[in-house]
């Protein structure tokens, strides 16, 4: 985009002689990007936005930004009328604005008062209605300019001729007392039409019939083709470039999604969520480009995708599974859990001291496990235990519901099926929790899925989130 348009805004008109143009200007701008509509698309709720803007909004929220009605990208239709309006206005804007800015000075000059100045102004712009005392001389010039304009604009006359011929064709109807079939245009008696319409195959009237009439019989088809010539433009465009369909990312495995991305030859790195987001953004960019009347080439689109990716933050360095770096507030996280972390450390130290005292008893039960593992397990259990001590059954229930796949009935069978390397971890819990506790299934989870334990504790210990308002 050129810098000229970049800075332009509807308020440019406010201090000119045409302040009403501000409303026109802002009506031709997208409400999301505040730029002139770029490939305007109309939603099913009849709001218009740039193709890319509305695609981004819908993929983020699924709602129309203006009225919050649910909508889908597949329901978007190109708004060619608005597009033509914008294109025309963009061309007219700079000169109009310049004129409007100067116009305010001209008015001042005119009010200051020289008749000559007024006349000149009247000649090239709007004529004041109240000028009753206008000289005959000026009337002459007006007439003469009118004459000139009609001579210099033969194109208008051509349009008139077309119109007349069209009208002339219509006026044939009463002459022969026949009517034309609404489907095939062949002429017949009025009574015969109804029977004919039922059997009409839509093929145009036979050439014999046409030739029998005067040469003007072929004329009516001409204006029709003129009318249809403009809408045909987008239809040929959309057929030339296929839109990228939306995917149901949750249905795709990571590898399948990676394959999809490489099929589209866009970067296929990152985890599932990163790839899903990239695919969404690429589909938005690509599909918006398909709609555009001035499509850009692939390299430019890839550059846009790259810029978008950079705006995502250090997505690639993020190691938080499932959480994009920009969404994760790491400082906040450590700050928020600071108390809990220090509690855990203190707890662990205390426990260790206790353990040193009573080491003999516990070591009989599970001698094979490592000391540090034991501590982690103990501490985690302990923190629940403090909360749960009063009413253990209920706590077991709530925690059980929070942990994925914790079905105590399956416990026995699953422990036997466990791979050997996980047994020590399970042993840790076994030593501290009673048999059949809901913690057992959770220990089967890989270490990467441990963090939920913290959220559990956080919830039981009291929520920082406000309930009201």
């Amino acid at each position: 985009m050129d810098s000229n348009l970049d800075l332009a805004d509807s308020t440019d008109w406010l201090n000119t002689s045409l302040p009403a143009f501000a409303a026109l200007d802002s009506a031709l701008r997208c409400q999301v990007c505040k730029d002139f509509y770029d490939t305007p698309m109309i939603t099913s709720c009849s709001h218009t936005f740039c193709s890319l803007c509305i695609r981004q909004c819908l993929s983020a929220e699924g709602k129309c930004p203006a009225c919050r009605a649910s909508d889908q990208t597949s329901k978007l239709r190109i708004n060619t009328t608005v597009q033509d309006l914008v294109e025309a206005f963009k061309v007219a804007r700079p000169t109009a604005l310049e004129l409007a800015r100067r116009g305010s000075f001209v008015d001042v000059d005119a009010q200051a008062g020289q008749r000559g100045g007024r006349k000149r102004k009247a000649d090239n712009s709007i004529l004041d209605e109240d000028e009753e005392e206008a000289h005959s001389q000026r009337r002459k010039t007006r007439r003469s300019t009118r004459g000139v304009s009609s001579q210099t604009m033969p194109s208008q006359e051509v349009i008139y001729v077309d119109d007349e011929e069209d009208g002339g064709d219509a006026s044939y109807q009463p002459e022969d007392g026949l009517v034309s079939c609404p489907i095939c245009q062949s002429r017949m008696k009025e009574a015969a039409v109804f029977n004919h319409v039922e059997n009409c195959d839509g093929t145009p009237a036979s050439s014999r019939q046409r030739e029998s009439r005067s040469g003007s019989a072929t004329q009516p088809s001409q204006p029709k083709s003129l009318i249809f010539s403009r809408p045909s433009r987008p239809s040929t465009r959309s057929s030339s470039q296929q839109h990228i369909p939306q995917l149901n990312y949750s249905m795709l495995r990571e590898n399948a999604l990676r394959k999809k991305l490489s099929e589209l030859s866009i970067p296929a790195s990152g985890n599932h969520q990163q790839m899903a987001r990239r695919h969404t953004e690429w589909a938005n960019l690509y599909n918006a480009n398909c709609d555009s009347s001035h499509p850009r080439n692939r390299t430019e689109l890839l550059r846009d995708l790259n810029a978008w990716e950079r705006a995502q933050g250090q997505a690639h360095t993020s190691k938080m599974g499932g959480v994009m770096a920009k969404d994760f507030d790491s400082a906040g996280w450590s700050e928020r859990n600071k108390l809990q972390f220090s509690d855990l450390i203190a707890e662990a130290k205390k426990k260790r001291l206790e353990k040193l005292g009573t080491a003999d008893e516990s070591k009989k039960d599970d001698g094979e496990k490592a000391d540090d593992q034991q501590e982690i397990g103990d501490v985690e259990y302990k923190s629940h235990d403090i909360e749960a001590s009063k009413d253990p059954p209920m706590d077991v229930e709530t925690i059980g519901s929070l942990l994925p796949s914790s079905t105590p009935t399956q416990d026995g069978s699953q422990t036997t099926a466990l791979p050997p390397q996980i047994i020590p971890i399970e042993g840790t819990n076994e030593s501290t929790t009673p048999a059949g506790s809901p913690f057992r299934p959770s220990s089967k989870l890989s270490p990467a899925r441990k963090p939920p334990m913290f959220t559990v504790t956080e919830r039981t210990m009291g929520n920082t989130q406000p309930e009201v308002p």
Partner: protein
Amino acid sequence: MAAARRLGKELQKMQNHMPDGISVVSADNFEIWFIDIKVLDDNPIYRDQTFRLKFHFSPHYPIEAPEVTFVITPTTPKIPMHPHIYSNGIICLDLLDRQGWSPVHNVESIAMSLQSMLTGNEKDERPPGDEDFCRRNTLRPRDINFSFHDNTV
């Protein structure tokens, strides 16, 4: 970037014209802006006071809502008293939340909404649990799950 372009336009518009009682204090970059608001009518709770708003824009603005909080500065020493504004400046307004936000909103409309939110207020109080929330909350405003129940604001 799209966010910078849009913010540039908004800023230009605001420099041309601002509603009464709202003024831009600083907008040096496209990340953090400060805006002052004043309550125009004679509401005794806010009479003769100016409040400073801090806008924090993400690179995905306007698709994502900006983070808007009241801040204390030497010239604006108070966080307005309001049953939906915590004393640490965090505002509970659906407009600023993910569900309530729409890309059609802009800085000016947010400032005006907050201004009218103050104008319409008659209670000289903080939200329930304010002290506790301010002490414990370390979440960014955008991560807080507010539940919106008061439709009178």
